[in-house]
Structures are given as C-alpha cells and as structure tokens.
C-alpha cells in the first residue's frame, strides 16, 4: 500500500513539471505596466526643473552654473520609481524604462547628469510669475543644490531678492 502511494506521488510530481524560473541564465522580461529606472533625454529637456521640485525623494538636483547653463543631476539611489517626474515632464523627456537589473557595487553608477542650455527672456532674464502666493513661495529662481555632497538645498525666492538678479543680465542686441 505504501509503495503504491509513493508511486502515485512520483506520478503527481512528474506531471507537475518544473516551476522554477531559469532566471540568471535566461532573461526574464518585466510585466507590461512595470516602472523601472527613469531615463533622461538631454535632447528634449528644456530645464524647467519641474521634476526636481516634484520629486518626493528630493532625488533630482539642479545647479545653475551661469545664466545660460543649468546642470540637472539624477542620483538614483533613493528613487522609488513613482513616475511623478515622467508624468509631469511637459516635453516627455523622461521615460520610465523597464530596466530592473540595476544592482551595482558602486552607487554612483546610477547617476545621470544633464548639461542644459537655458534660453532667457529677452526683457527680464529667466523669470516667470506663479499665479498663487503659495506657488510663488515654491518658486526657486536660481538653484544651487550641492552636487558634490548630493544634497538638495531649499531656498525661497526672498533670498534672491537681496541680490538683484534681473540687473546683471546682458541682453543680446546685435
């Protein structure tokens, strides 16, 4: 009787087949709506820094070298892949890829750094006014985040009112 039951058990096991994924040997594609690492496209980006202001992990740093050049740095270390940056981007320069094989031995491998040209308003330099007082508080103007120590520095607009930003702009009138 016990032999019969063992044969029956073997038959059930043979019928079930192999369940284990052969993952590291064969590639395993991610499901359709999976959000992986965001990829930044430098040719489409206009440098509005909306992604940096809306990132819940404060992950995207912005540094203005001068009036014309803005550096945007994505750290990638505490990104939760929420996709808010890709949702918000007006030019669709950020795409959420399906890339999940991002394990490294050096966390700096995940960084993406964009060097962007900023065009300026011909009258007043780079400025625009937000509709509500609350959004005016959130407006950063020039941003000087700490790129070397990977720190996001919050500065309100009133800080920049001490220096007259709009006066030192050279307007091109050829």
């Amino acid at each position: 009787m016990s032999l019969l039951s063992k044969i029956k058990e073997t038959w059930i096991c043979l019928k079930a087949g192999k369940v284990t994924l052969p993952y590291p040997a064969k590639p395993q594609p991610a499901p359709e709506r999976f959000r992986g690492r965001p990829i930044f496209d430098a040719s489409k980006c206009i440098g509005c820094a909306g992604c940096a202001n809306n990132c819940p992990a404060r992950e995207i740093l912005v540094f203005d070298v001068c009036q014309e050049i803005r550096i945007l740095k994505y750290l990638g270390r505490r990104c939760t892949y929420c996709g808010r940056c890709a949702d918000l981007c007006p030019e669709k320069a950020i795409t959420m890829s399906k890339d999940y094989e991002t394990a490294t031995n050096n966390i700096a491998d995940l960084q993406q750094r964009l060097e962007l040209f900023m065009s300026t308003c011909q009258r007043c330099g780079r400025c625009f006014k937000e509709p509500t007082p609350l959004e005016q508080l959130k407006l950063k103007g020039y941003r000087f985040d700490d790129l070397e120590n990977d720190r996001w520095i919050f500065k309100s607009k009133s800080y920049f009112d001490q220096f007259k930003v709009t006066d030192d702009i050279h307007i091109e009138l050829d």
Partner: protein
Amino acid sequence: MFRKLFLKFFPRSLWVYHANSGGCNGCDIEVLNVLTPYYDVERFGIKLVASPRHADVMLCQGPAMRSTAAALKRAYEAMPSPKIVFAIGSCACGGGIWHDTYNVIGPVEKIIPVNFYIPGCPPRPEAIIYGVALAMGLVDKKVLPSSLKQEELPIPRYHPEDLEMQGDMLVYKKLEKI
C-alpha cells in the same frame, strides 16, 4: 589558475541573514519571495539563517534609524570575518523618501560598509537574484553613470537678425522649425 578551477568545481554556498532596521516590510516580502520554489535561490546554495553568527551575507533593509543603528552595528560585528553586506531597496541604498526626518540617520552605509546595492522600492525578486548573481560573478554589471550634454537649444532661440520683412509683415525665419 588552480584557484579559479577550485572555485568552479567547489562553489561556496552563502548563508544569508536578513536585518530589517526600520523598513516597511516590503523588501522583506520580496526577499522571502526569492526563497520560494518559483524563484528558487537555494540552487545557488543560499540559505536563510536566523543568527548573524552563522551568516556570511547580511541583507540590510530599511534606513539606518536612530533607534536601531546600534543594534545593526552589533549584528554586523557579530558576523564571522569574510562578510558581504547587501543594501536592498531604496531605503537602505539612499535613505528612502523619509531621508530627512528626525529619526532617520540616512543610508545603511553611514553605519556599516556596504558591498552591493540593489535599488528599487521594493526591488523585484529577479533584481535581488541578479544582485546575488553579480556578487557571485555569474552575470555582468549593466549600469554605468551617464553624462549628457545639449549640443543646441531644444527650442530655436529668438534672434533679431532672423527677422525678415515679407511685404508689410515681420516674419521670423526659423518659425517652421518649431
């Protein structure tokens, strides 16, 4: 050469201790998911042990918190000497989205040295297997830092010399490119 041959025919098995220092249990579930028959990680000889004194590998989940940092450090020091530390999840890699609150010290690497990072919130079970396989030398690393630069402005810039009189209208010459 003998060392490589020896490593190939006598592969070592890693015993794993998982330490959660204040995470949300999302990465815990993914790590336990890896040990199920579907993603059977015991075919690499990996086994979950309960004590850090038996372990070779420490899987850290969650940020280093003010209340658990000392216990994490003690667990690390209790491991026998050739030891590897994995930081699993975005909390352990970089502090998570609550990296600036009062009780979070920061990433795990501020307390103990970390060898491998697996980002994700939570990382897929395949991503954890990929990280383990990367540590064992079965697969190659796929990510590298990228630095991109704009060659020209994405939007054509207004220049007075591009204005043209056509009849009695001022027309901007590059307007078709927008």
